[in-house]
């Protein structure tokens, strides 16, 4: 609770530090506009056109429904991979053999292109939610797994010995030594897994679903509706930035205050 208050207290200062980021975003939009003037509206709609389309789209309840479907899928997939990845990673990290054996498997999972998973999932699950969620899980699970594994493997023996010398009870050792250390590895892994889920969900929907933002993107492509396509991209990026910079980054700053 104290922790939450501190995050809220520091939030305005954090937001204020965002002017630099905002400036670079505006610079990017300026370049975009230049591109639009050079290549014309069909190839690259101007930012103004895009944002106008976007605000028009956001008036429609149907679009919101699609966005919510996508968010649900991404979040659900992320949740599954976060839970399974964390638990399995912790267990694997505790045993030398398990961590050794899991490494090549993780390499295979990470090396396999998500698009290949989508094809397989479509064969296995058909055009359903399962296909999409499966793809998200399979793509983001290894990230969490590796984070948890490394967190558990890298606890210093020196600190363990110190805790033993003070006869810390097992539960206290867990909360004072293991959790904080592992968390410092697992939290960034969650953040990247969330980003990954967000990207994969659109791709999976584009190929294997008839609703959600991905499917809307596929429609826009079919109708050569570039402004809508770009507006959807803006929605995706905007949501990710909102989650990352407004929710996750302030938490990360507080949690990792002790880091160099």
């Amino acid at each position: 609770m104290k922790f939450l208050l501190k995050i809220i207290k520091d939030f305005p200062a954090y937001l204020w530090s965002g002017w630099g980021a905002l400036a670079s975003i505006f610079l990017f939009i300026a370049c975009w506009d230049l591109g639009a003037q050079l290549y014309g509206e069909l190839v690259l709609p101007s930012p103004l056109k895009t944002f106008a389309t976007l605000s028009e789209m956001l008036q429609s309840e149907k679009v919101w429904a699609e966005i919510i479907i996508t968010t649900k899928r991404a979040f659900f997939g992320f949740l599954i991979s976060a839970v399974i990845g964390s638990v399995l990673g912790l267990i694997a990290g505790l045993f030398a053999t398990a961590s050794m054996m899991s490494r090549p498997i993780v390499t295979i999972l990470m090396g396999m292109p998500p698009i290949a998973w989508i094809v397989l999932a479509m064969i296995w699950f058909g055009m359903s939610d399962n296909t999409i969620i499966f793809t998200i899980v399979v793509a983001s699970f290894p990230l969490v797994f590796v984070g948890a594994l490394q967190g558990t493997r890298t606890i210093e023996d020196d600190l363990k010995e110190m805790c033993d010398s003070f006869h810390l009870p097992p539960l206290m050792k867990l909360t004072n030594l293991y959790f904080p250390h592992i968390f410092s590895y697992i939290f960034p892994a969650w953040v990247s897994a969330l980003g990954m889920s967000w990207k994969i969900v659109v791709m999976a929907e584009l190929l294997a679903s008839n609703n959600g933002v991905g499917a809307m993107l596929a429609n826009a492509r079919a109708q050569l509706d570039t402004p809508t396509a770009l507006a959807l991209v803006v929605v995706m990026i905007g949501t990710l930035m909102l989650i990352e910079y407004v929710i996750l980054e302030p938490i990360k700053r507080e949690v990792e205050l002790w880091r160099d």
Partner: protein
Amino acid sequence: MERLVVESLNHSYGFTEILKDINFELNEGEVLSIVGPSGGGKTTLLHLCAGLLDVEEGEIKNSFQSSAFTFQEPRLLPWKNVIDNIALGLLAKGADKNEALEKSQQIAIQFGLEKKDFHKFPKDLSGGMKQRVSFSRALVIKPSLLFLDEPFSALDIGLKQELQTHLIELIHQKALTILFITHDLMEAIRLSDRILLLKAEPGRIVKHFKYELPQMQRDNEYIYKESAKILLDQQIIETFELGIK
């Protein structure tokens, strides 16, 4: 009376014999130093005595009520601030949280830490300050037996003396028993009632030295004189290989 008795202790890592037939006892209120060259098994011996390693052969009887350990490196938890680090041992013993924090702050002041440092994380502390925290953490639980594993070796002479003076005060009040390992003979002479010389490969005790003068009365002159004397001892010369030019 509380005491630590080590009887015919042997220890090996694989086929390498680290310690061979170690016998000694440490009585309440005493300061016992074990000196010897690096790699001679001193740390292993201390870890065995503190129960951080399992005894394989021989016996260690420890009747001290409580003990604390100060390591060569501070070994602070990087995600805890100064006060929370100090309070660790107290909380492990089941002390009330507020009381533990209160006591930790008091001892931090005694060990020369300032109020403004209390909420700093270890990354923001100098090496000396970290070792002050480490000492506070060990002594705040009022251990009857303190294990010191060369905790002064990385400190400047001023801080070294300051921390040793703290310990000497506690020794003077008969509040503390210390098992101290070091390779620094002057340090050992300043603090100890008895010194055991541990020769390497395998680690075995080859000589005892005894110092009767109370630690409070040992001035620099006494320490220099005794150091010069001990450095001429044939066993010391052999153990530390001082003869090799």
